[in-house]
């Protein structure tokens, strides 16, 4: 449920546009100052709903590996990997590598130049260095042309220059293939192999994930909720061998937020009883939760159960003030009575806000509590948007 893409693409643009026609100032890597001061997320997204793109109206069966590849007819799409990693000596990391695809226009017109395309790719790479208490972010943009960036289905592969997420060839055609993620920037890098432990699960109504009561305001959404990770991360020139667990979200659609939606809180939790919980809460401008908020609970044998807005209660225990402005909820109590789950969630590091063209918080969290009579713990990732104003 990462509609952050919309915001991002809108604001890249702003980033490009803000200064005079001249060279950038020294040390000026991200045009942070470019972020417009105001504005409600929903206005921004709602303002530009573009007719002409197909909408996600009906559930559809997912087919693999084809659906791991791109769906360029839809306006936006993403490959969203997050995970918690451990290195030797108790060093712990969280990572996020996301490649967004965005269609500028509903149709790609033929053009003599190989550069012309309606496809734009955006990449976010973030690394949380828990012990050092540091959070690193890198961002990239490219058009989906000339092989600079793109996505393919056979074999599944999506890339933005030298940032690549690619399914590895596997002997057993029936098994979900492992993925290799490589991305590097000046101060950070990852090279990770993700091996699925469970089959993909369809979120929402057989994969149709509705975001508001309006028909078509929805996306196709499936998740690989548990992947075993091996590989290495690099921070400030030193490399660390890591193992851990990751989560891969795939989502595409053409809709925008409804006018009265402020933002969302997204939780992806991997518990040590081999179950996973995904829940997103859409926040309305009157402070209420949108009834279309929803989630999925995945059992240890990989069976998915849809959760509705009323199935989950969330209580904010603490908040964090961003030095850039804005107050984020940062600790919660999450209760799912239907499965007897009652846990507390807190971040491994408060400052996991991505200060890119648009600001949002996306970070590694720890989970602890009970399920029924048993104690349960786990790790996960949380995304918070619409708080930065």
């Amino acid at each position, binding site marked *: 449920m990462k509609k952050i893409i919309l915001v991002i*693409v*809108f*604001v*890249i*643009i*702003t*980033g*490009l*546009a*803000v*200064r*005079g*026609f*001249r*060279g*950038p100032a020294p040390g000026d890597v991200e*045009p942070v100052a470019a972020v*417009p*001061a*105001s*504005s409600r997320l929903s*206005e*921004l997204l709602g*303002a*530009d709903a573009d007719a002409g793109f197909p909408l996600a109206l009906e559930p559809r069966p997912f087919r693999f590996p084809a659906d791991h590849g791109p769906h360029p007819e839809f306006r936006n799409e993403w490959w969203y990997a997050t995970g918690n990693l451990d290195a030797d000596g108790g060093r712990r990391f969280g990572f996020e590598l996301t490649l967004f695809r965005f269609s*500028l*226009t509903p149709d790609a*017109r033929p*053009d*003599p*130049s*190989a*550069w*012309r*395309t*309606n496809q*734009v790719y955006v990449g976010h790479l973030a690394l949380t260095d828990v012990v050092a208490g540091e959070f690193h972010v890198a961002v990239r*943009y*490219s*058009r989906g042309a*000339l*092989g*600079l960036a793109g996505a393919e289905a056979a074999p599944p592969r999506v*890339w933005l*220059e*030298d940032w690549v997420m690619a399914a590895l060839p596997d002997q057993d055609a029936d098994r979900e293939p492992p993925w290799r993620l490589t991305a*590097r920037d000046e101060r950070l890098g990852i090279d990770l192999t993700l091996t699925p432990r469970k089959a993909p699960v369809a979120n929402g109504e057989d994969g149709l994930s509705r975001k508001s009561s309006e028909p078509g305001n929805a996306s196709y959404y499936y998740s690989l909720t548990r992947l075993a990770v091996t590989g290495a991360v690099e921070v400030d020139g030193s490399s660390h061998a890591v193992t851990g667990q990751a989560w891969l979200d795939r989502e595409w659609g053409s809709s925008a937020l409804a006018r009265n939606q402020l933002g969302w809180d997204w939780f992806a939790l991997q518990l040590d009883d081999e179950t996973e919980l995904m829940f997103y809460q859409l926040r309305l401008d009157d402070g209420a939760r949108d009834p279309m908020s929803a989630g999925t609970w995945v059992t240890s044998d990989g069976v998915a159960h849809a959760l509705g807005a009323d199935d989950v209660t969330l209580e904010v225990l603490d908040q964090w003030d961003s030095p850039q402005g804005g107050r984020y909820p940062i600790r919660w109590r999450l209760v799912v009575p239907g499965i007897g789950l009652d846990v507390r969630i807190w971040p491994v590091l408060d400052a996991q806000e991505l200060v890119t063209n648009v600001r949002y918080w996306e970070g590694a969290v720890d989970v602890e509590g009970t399920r029924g009579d048993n104690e349960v713990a786990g790790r996960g990732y949380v995304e918070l948007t619409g708080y930065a104003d």
Partner: protein
Amino acid sequence: MPVLYRASSGYLLRHPWQLGLALIGICIGVAVIVAVDLANDSSRKAFRLSMDTLNGAATHQLVGGPGGIDEGIYAELRRGGLRRAAPVVDGRGDVQGLSLNVLGIDPFAEREFRHYSLAGRDERSVIDDGARTARGMEAKALRQLLAEPGASLVSAQAARALRLGLGDAFEVRAGGQARNAFVAGLIDAGAVGQLLVVDIATAQDWFGLLGHLSRIDLRLSGDGQAKELRHRLPAGITLLAADARTQSMSQMSAAFMTNLTAMSLLALLVGIFLIYNSVGFAALQRRGLIGVLRALGLTRREVVGLVLLEAAGLGVVGAALGVGAGIWLGHGLLELVSRSINDLYFRLSVTDVSIGTLAVAKGALAGLLATVVAAAGPAWEASGYRPQLALRRSLLERRSGRMLPWLAAGGLASAGLSLVVLQLSGHSLLAGLVALFLMILGFALSIPLAVRFLAEQGARLAAAVGGIPARLAVGGIATSLSRTGIAIVALAVAVSATVGVSIMVQSFRGAVLEWLDETLRADLYVGVIDGSLDPGLVEDIARVPGVSEYSASRRVWLESEQGRTRMIVLKMAQRSYAGTRLLDADPDEAWPAFERDDAVLVSEPYAFRYGTRRGDLVTLETPTGRRDFRVAATFRSYDVNPGSLLISRSTYARYWDDPQIDSIGVYLADGADVAAVTDAIAALAAGRQSVELRSNRQLQALSLEIFDRTFVITDVLYWLAVGVALVGILGAMLALQLERARELAVLRALGVTPWQLGGMVTLQSGFIGLLSGLAALPLGLLMAWLLIEVINRRAFGWSMPVVVTPAALGSAVLLSVAAALAAGLYPAWRAARSRPALAMREE
């Protein structure tokens, strides 16, 4: 000492015209230097600024051959992890007759290089609340830029000139075709002024560069990274430092600007004569006062100090006025300079004069120093006499008379030194200019002696013809050389400059005309402004009835770490060969080698600049690496580029993959109707390409027009020099007349009528003009020779025969006489009106 100052200022105020002329002299001299410097600096700076803006933060650039750089190389570098790289496809476009820079970019790669601020967002897009609208507009602008062909970010300056607003559609003529575009955003383009920014896909299409880039801008962290990258580059791709590249591009016009500076120095030189004349004269005038002061017990140093202080005061005021006038004049000159640079070298839009402190300081200091030095000599001399002697004028004349041979000897030495400098300085333009000035100085120093001789002879002649008054008038010149000498020299130098420059321009124009006549052999020329001809169109034109054959040319730049080389690719028609004159080879040998054996021809400027001869090898960067090409011959060319190479189309095709043709020359069959063929070609082109269709006559006229325009600046500068000299004559005549008031009064008392007196003064002025004019001729001829054989050759590598017409010489003498007569009118009128009783009573 205050009394002394009062004596000094009192004198100056009682003689306002003298004060005024001294100030004007200093002012004009300083103004010309400042103006030329400002115009040069401003155009240089404008070029650099616009290059810097267009290059953005790039430290290096990757360039390919003439066809550009393969776009796949960019993608490969990017995927290989090179982040700070931005592709660029650029060119020129024409919108409603306005020529614009077109910059094709990838917005996503631009952030590291250039930023675009959308201007005018408040003007047309305020629909909702400000912040949201701005954001929405910017998002829309980028989306349009990427997704919609023709979407353009237009510089606010261009939009104003074209009356375009956000969303307006317009037509761009690019690559010879009309393209549809629209305003997706208005941007602030800084120094570039007229600019269109489009997506790289749009630019590739417009400029026929599909699959290619003009260059790749890079930001490298240091020499290490540059070196490492250089290793990885495929053959035919060159990595250049952005600064060095800008430098070598701006170097193209360096010789042109040096020549302008030399012109300004000439004006200063004449100005210095004038300053010397007025200031020195003011000092001489007060020999009486100085004598009194000395008699009163003032030391020699105190007297000299007083005079110098006064001169410094004058210098400061004059220089300040000169700086002001120079800045004003600079605006006018800048327009001329930038127009010539646009005609000859590169597109330049200079919007304002940048007032450099250096230029201003240089001019002001030159004026100040000249003033003080001019006053020092006379002051020192006057204060050196025993007080009672200083009051006698005849002594001064005798002494200055004795000095004339020494001056002349100094002049001879200076001229000799000039020749030595010429011999030893090789190709140095600066040394050539030094030699030129030494030569002028040498002549200037010898002129007074020559004038005395001529005046003495002239007086005898005048007596025979016009009686006593005529004899007095002409003989007076020789006996008052300490007054008139400097003015005569100033006028002579100014006039000689007009002789030298006009002979040079005339010879040059003649040579260019002949060259154009010879070179433009085809009947019709078809080309595209800032673009290439459609190959299909070329084939169709070849089939038009009445067309017998055609030649095809393409002009490209080859860039290497050593700089840029202009290469002209020619497919010759049978009749073309005779149009290129070979200077050092037998056409029957050179042309076959040119067509078949990979040989190239070098232009005369190229040969001069690089010392290349027939048989030498030149190394060129080809897509497959560096290759040596043998030089088959040197050809005559008056191209302004610092040298070009001529290569045959077939050789070019063997090494470069670039089938583009810029223009063709169409040769008609015997008896074919030019008008009919022209119409047929125009009809063929209609709807396909907007071509420029010109007959050889039209093209020749156009070339000459540009030639003449270039020399407008020269004209302006030498008229300024003449103006300075005029003021000098006026000052000298007035001073002379003032000093001889008693003499004139005596004449009146003896019965000479006012008319006769006025006539005498006029005759004297006229004779001064004649003497100056005659003295100017040998110097003028020598200057012409130096300008053609030394300065032009060293600056541009051209050679041309010196053509001297009697008219040029005659008109120079006439100019000199007319100028002197004009300057003598007022003194003559004053002399005629003088009241003898008053003048005689004064003592």
